[in-house]
């Protein structure tokens, strides 16, 4: 792969610009959040070219953004943010990704490391039994075709109504766990068929369920409002999305968008950027279908959170209330949203694509939940299973600079193949176990693909967004037990 030779202008230690004149056809400049070392590794791939390509899309405003965890995606880079004016801009399924509303949910407990460590094997086994995971896994909840329509429209509330969680969970879920505008009429039979058996499953690939120990608290006041009180406290992080359902929705609508590109005479530098005007029938149909898939993903995380609580309750012989198992927050990191932002001192309705990027709204924002109004929306940034994860909050600066967006994780550095060649699944398992991390997986060889050395260090990623001011780090936790699909 040729090294990317494009021009970058340094703005400060954490911001770099791809000038608008880098390529004819760019409508805005690119803006990359990274330190110097990260930038070097980004140049090894065509990631930055993708940032420039996104800048071609009609209606894009501000910049085509790259977060520090950026890596090479399809058309859009993963870790990219782009906002399009709803009036004359486009929506692109590639700017959301295949796994619509892939995201993370964080639960807290009142348990300490000392209480959990002696029983971690028992706990991980209980979680592994209780949460369907792995390739081809099927859910414990049976969803009928008719119920599927309700599920798509109601999101997480659908699960709560069936006793899987509480109203309180919805209050601390992005969009209340339900994106409006969902229309099951825009969903193909194929998508429904893929979705029915997979509802309430963790899936495979980089998805996981992790029991974590708080290792460091950077901002005790903000952390305490989230219920993170002390080092040694146990948290649970759930990372999954919309499974085969979201993939089928994306595949179906990419096909429609292929036609739309020629119909509306849109000039694209990459076929995978296929898009349609937000206001066109094709654009509106995709938004309605995407909302169905986003809602499906929230049901998924809602169910898994419930079974996680059940498992803890069973192992520790206490109610989930007694174990203090409240939800801290749930964020989507593959999604497009219609939001209002201030651009050049005027209010503008934009379609914000966040692909491998997290919303990071500040304190006081109307969409920041009441309980977090004072501190800003929690941002959950998982790292790889051998390192650590971070909790942060959104800031005013993110609102001004990045349409209220920040990073989403560590970001892949090695391809899956390269990871498999450099290390064996069994060795990864042993290495992690020697460091006190218990792993349970249905697919041992694929564990190698998720090894630490395949990822950037999430600590570097979070430091960039923290110092750039687009989020503020609050706490760090390390894994103690992990379930990999």
């Amino acid at each position, binding site marked *: 792969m040729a090294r990317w030779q494009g021009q970058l202008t340094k703005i400060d230690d954490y911001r770099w610009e791809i000038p608008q004149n880098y390529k004819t056809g760019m409508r805005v400049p690119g803006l990359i959040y990274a330190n110097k070392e990260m930038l070097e590794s980004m140049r090894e*791939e065509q990631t930055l070219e993708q940032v420039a390509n996104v800048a071609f899309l009609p209606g894009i405003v501000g910049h085509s953004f790259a977060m520090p965890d950026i*890596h*090479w*995606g*399809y*058309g859009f880079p*993963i870790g990219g943010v782009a906002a399009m004016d709803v009036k004359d801009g486009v929506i692109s399924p590639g700017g959301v990704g*295949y*796994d619509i509303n892939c995201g993370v949910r964080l639960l807290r407990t009142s348990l300490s490391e000392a209480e959990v460590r002696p029983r971690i094997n028992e706990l991980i086994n209980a979680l592994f039994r209780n949460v369907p995971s792995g*390739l*081809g896994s099927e859910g414990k909840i049976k969803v009928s075709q008719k119920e599927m329509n309700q599920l798509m429209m109601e999101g997480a509330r659908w699960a709560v109504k069936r006793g899987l969680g509480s109203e309180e969970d919805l209050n601390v879920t992005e969009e209340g766990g339900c994106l409006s505008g969902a229309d099951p009429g825009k969903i193909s039979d*194929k998508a429904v*068929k*893929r979705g029915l*058996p997979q509802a309430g499953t963790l*899936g*495979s*690939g980089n998805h996981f369920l992790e029991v974590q120990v708080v290792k460091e608290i950077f901002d005790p006041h903000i952390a305490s409002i989230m219920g993170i009180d002390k080092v040694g406290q146990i948290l649970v992080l759930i990372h999954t999305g919309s499974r*085969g359902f979201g*993939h*089928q929705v*994306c*595949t179906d609508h*990419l*096909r429609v968008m*292929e*036609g739309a590109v020629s119909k509306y005479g849109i000039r694209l530098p*990459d*076929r*995978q950027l*296929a898009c349609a005007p937000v206001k066109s029938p094709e654009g509106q149909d995709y938004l309605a279908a995407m909302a169905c898939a986003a809602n499906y993903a929230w049901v998924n995380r809602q169910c898994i959170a419930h079974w996680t609580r059940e498992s803890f309750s069973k192992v520790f012989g206490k109610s989930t209330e007694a174990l203090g198992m409240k939800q801290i927050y749930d964020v989507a990191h593959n999604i497009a949203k219609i939001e209002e932002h201030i651009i050049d001192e005027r209010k503008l309705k934009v379609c914000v694509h966040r692909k491998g990027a997290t919303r990071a709204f500040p304190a006081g924002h109307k969409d920041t939940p009441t309980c977090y109004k004072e501190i800003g929306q929690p941002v959950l940034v998982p790292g790889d299973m051998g390192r650590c994860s971070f909790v942060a909050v959104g800031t005013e600066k993110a609102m001004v600079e990045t349409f209220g967006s920040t990073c989403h994780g560590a970001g*892949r*550095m*090695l*391809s*899956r*193949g*390269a990871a498999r060649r450099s290390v064996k699944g069994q060795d990864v398992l042993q290495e992690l176990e020697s460091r006190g991390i218990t792993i349970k997986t249905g*697919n041992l*060889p*694929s564990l190698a693909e998720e090894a630490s050395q395949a990822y950037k260090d999430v600590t570097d990623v979070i430091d960039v967004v923290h110092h750039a001011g687009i989020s503020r780090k609050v706490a760090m936790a390390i894994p103690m037990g992990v379930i990999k699909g």
Partner: protein
Amino acid sequence: MNKTFEVIDHTADVGIIAYGADIEELFSNAALALFSLITELESIENIFHLDLEVSSQDMDSLLIEWLNELIYLFDVKHTLFNRFDIRSLTNNELKATCYGEDFDAMKHTLKVGIKAATYHMLKLDKNDDGFKAQVILDI
């Protein structure tokens, strides 16, 4: 024997390069490459066959649709195939008979979950030796 296919790396995912003396062989080999990623091809027996028809607007997207149809069948019906007779193939329509069996956990080892064939870096070329196609798969 001529090359049939190769598996290539892509940062977040995986890719395939398929070869074929003619376009039919290319489509057949691309499907073989796909199933080689999912399980061991040798472990699949030809117990039943299924006729498939796929249509699209051009040859490039037909290849993507073809692979997506097979991914869909595996995801929903858990069917594995390792032999493909391409009965007819035009610029926008393909008719094929696929031979294989249902996934059986006692018999087949699942390697990777393939979720979609993408247009990213898609290449379909003809040269003196025949046809060659590159497809990146989302996993």
